[in-house]
């Protein structure tokens, strides 16, 4: 697994993938936070709400872009046969790639703490930023990214075409993040199933953690979704054997 992890990390950081994805994430959010209309400097509230609302939508596109080649490319080039005939299990291959992409996501995520520091410095004494809720939101956002990475890998494992992997990844990320929430608010589900449908989606758990209360049920939920997609990825790899 370490060999794969190292190879993937090298690939991210020796190509432009890592730097571009970090830059895209940071610059887009900075523009929205500090420069574009409705930024936090114009409003008088010390809050990072804009950031935490916008970031998931950027990640829905950014993370599938990072992960789209990981299996699709190996299948396309036949190197998957090289990997699969080495003395490692398919799960080790998947985990190596998952952790590598997770590390890249971590590097993309960390610079955004600068926003927190800025807002803390700028806020007035009598209206400080709500640190608890902000930390909660950061944790939620990190898990959200970690889930998207597993979804992106899965999408990449079911095809040998990178574009298809990207589009399926975006679609599944959107589905998991927003669609369940939308479906639950359809009139037919009102007052009955809406709570459960909402709870399948990522959005509800992200919101709940963002309130500053880190509930173990939310963490368990995120970890389960990650596990589910990692197992799905492994199954997709093993489908050659069917």
């Amino acid at each position, binding site marked *: 697994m*370490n*060999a*794969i992890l*190292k*190879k993937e990390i*090298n*690939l991210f950081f*020796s*190509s432009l993938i890592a730097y571009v994805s970090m830059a895209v994430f940071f610059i887009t959010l900075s523009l929205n936070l500090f420069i574009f209309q409705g930024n936090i400097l114009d409003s008088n509230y010390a809050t990072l709400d804009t950031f935490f609302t916008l970031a998931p939508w950027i990640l829905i596109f950014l993370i599938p872009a990072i992960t789209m080649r990981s299996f699709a490319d190996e299948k396309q*080039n*036949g*190197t998957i*046969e*090289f*990997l*699969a*005939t*080495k*003395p*490692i*299990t398919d799960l080790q291959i998947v985990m190596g790639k998952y952790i590598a992409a997770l590390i890249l996501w971590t590097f993309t995520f960390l610079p955004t703490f600068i926003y927190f520091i800025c807002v803390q410095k700028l806020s007035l004494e009598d209206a400080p930023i709500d640190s608890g809720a902000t930390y909660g939101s950061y944790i939620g956002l990190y898990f959200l990214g970690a889930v998207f990475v597993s979804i992106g890998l899965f999408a990449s494992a079911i095809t040998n075409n990178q574009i298809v992997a990207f589009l399926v990844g975006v679609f599944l990320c959107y589905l998991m993040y927003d669609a369940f929430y939308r479906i639950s608010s359809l009139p037919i589900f009102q007052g009955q199933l809406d709570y459960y449908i909402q709870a399948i989606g990522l959005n509800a758990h992200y919101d709940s953690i963002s309130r500053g209360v880190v509930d173990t049920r939310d963490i368990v939920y995120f970890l389960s979704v990650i596990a589910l997609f990692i197992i799905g990825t492994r199954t997709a790899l093993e489908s*050659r*054997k069917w």
Partner: protein
Amino acid sequence: MSISVHNLSKTYGNQKAVDSISFSVNKGEILGFLGPNGAGKSTTMKMLTCYLPPSAGTASVCGLDIIHQPIAVKQKIGYLPENNPLYYDMYVKEFLEFAWHINGMKTPNNSQQKIKNSIELVGLQVEQHKKIGQLSKGYKQRVGLAQALIHEPEVLILDEPTSGLDPNQLADIRQLIRNLAKEKTIIFSTHIMQEVQAVCDKVVIINKGKIVANDTADNLQNMLSNETLVEVEFENAIAVDALKEMPQIHAVEKISDTHFVLHGKQSKLLRKAIFEFAVQKNNPLLLLKEESKSLEEVFHQLTGKQ
């Protein structure tokens, strides 16, 4: 027995790509795997390397079962897949280091030495600092071989290792394969008959998923050539009818008045008769050459349209 294959089958959909084949290879032997396109050679190799599970039957590598002990089996094997898939973005050494680690080899201080050895073994010294994508096809092939050798496996499975090589490289790689066989067991597939004659101890010929021949290269040649051709040249012209007086001769092909190809059975008796005939007619014999059927013809005979 280093490799033994037992009634191995693979079905894709409703097509039987490999149909209940059995063969075995001993340590130190080179097995040539022959067959026309689509015969099932690569599919067999994919099963032996645990890439695809067999639909039926079993096989073992160094006594380890390919179905129940895939990780242990894969550790014993160096595999060069068909079309030689490689990471074109990687540098040669970087890739070999990756191959070393992914084979479960831990000791890193040893790795540089092993990488160096395998680079020298396949003759990659000049090109070792390049990216794989920049190498010519022949050198990419050598990288594929180096990758298969790096962890010093007991068994080598090479799917068309010499495809796309120039004649010099071809000779080099064949020599390399022969040298390696001293301490390894090798299966390799090819379409080139001379290669089998030059390199292999054993030959398995497979057609439409079934084994049609499994023997030593020499035996195959002898067994299947039930007719011997002898090319002869006399100093003075001689009539075809005169030649046909020899009872051993079935047919005569005339090339010129003095030059013929004679068809018969039992090469040795035939040649003896021709010599005595020449002495008796006082017509000096300038050429007496047996044309044995080549393995190529054997191959056509076995795998041709039935």
